[in-house]
């Protein structure tokens, strides 16, 4: 799966969970930029991505994913490794 494909899926999940409509999402979008991106919603987001791509983020790694770019990079690595 290409980075663009992964990026599109992650963005769709992200905008769905945080109910974003017109906001511009980029790789740089991080936890400080999105009002409701808190500890609980982060788990919901990561859980949804794990289910979508059938991958698993270790707890330590999950806690360190603080931007869309971080998440996409991590997904890329995991999917390439399969």
């Amino acid at each position, binding site marked *: 799966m290409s980075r663009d494909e992964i990026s599109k899926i992650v963005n769709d999940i992200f905008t769905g969970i945080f109910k974003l409509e017109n906001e511009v999402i980029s790789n740089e979008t991080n936890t400080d930029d999105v009002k409701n991106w808190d500890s609980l919603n982060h788990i919901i987001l990561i859980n949804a991505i794990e289910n979508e791509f059938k991958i698993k983020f270790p707890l330590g790694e999950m*806690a360190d994913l603080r931007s869309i770019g971080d998440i996409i990079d991590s997904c890329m690595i995991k999917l390439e490794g399969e």
Partner: protein
Amino acid sequence: MITKIIYEQQGVSDQEVEVISLLFNDYDEVAEGDIIAEIETSKTVVEILASSKGLIKNSVELNSTIQAGDTIAIIGDSAEEIDGETDKEVKLDVSEKIEKSISAKALKIAKSNNLTEDDLKKLNITSVEELNEHIKSDMSDNSSSLNQDFFAQYTEQSSPKNKLSEIESLKLAQSKTLPCTCSILIEDFCIEAFSKKHNLYFNNIFPVLASICSDELMKYRNLNGFFHDNKKHIYEEVNIGFTLDADEYLQVPVVHNCEKLNSEELKNTFIELLTASITGKMTISMMSKPTFVISDLSAVGDCFFHTPLLAPYTSAILGTAIDKNTSRLSLTLTYDHQMSSGKEALLFLESIRTKLSI
């Protein structure tokens, strides 16, 4: 003439009740005033009376749950008339219902307090609420001889001879706590810098607090126990619960054996429990046996935590919150004064403040 016996709601929580006895078979003859059924409400057992004479046919089954407005039985002059189900609703008048003098639940509680059925009759107590009121008033009134008898028995029974494992939840619920609260502030507290320094998960300071508290609770042991039977009970292990709003209700997941975990393990266990809660995989064991609780509002918003409430089987709870406008972190401890002195509580808070400020 057909008469329907309808269940009328007894109290706000009695929309649904259980039929616990049906005293007549279908087409038996009943007289006006006969007890035809018994239903169990949240407070008591209510006898349902026949409001007219005739042949009866039950409309509900034994041990079934019925709702307000349901027909319990039909009374008519003949079997044909009943089977024809001619409608004529006669609502049961409240005065026609006779409550049993004492509810089964009240009797059970009374027994555990060495009160007999006769004692309850003398006191005109029929419900659990009335019994609890009586026990409360007993605490401040020693003038009645019955009260004195009751207290003599209670004191004798409650002397500290039971093992911890034998304590019944009912008795524990009746034990009193004397909650007191004290607070301490940390000025110029920058959560962002603190979070970066300790690599926190979304500014949640629980793992750091849990680590500090577990160390301190090994010193201030009275804050890690509970009071019952006029005796202090101290836990050996430190299991710290944290409060979590999940789907509009409160959960208290517990990090067990905190005294054996390092900061990273505490953080990972904390995230694990959060994940279990959010993904619906929380188990009873994950929420069992907290010995101390931390209620952390620091990641929620700007506020001051005034009065955390003690959880059952504990003697202290730490509430924490941040007011970003004034850069103040507040630490509020509610503790059971039967377990700890105010000085002890403040020294505990002072130790936490010192360690957080390092």
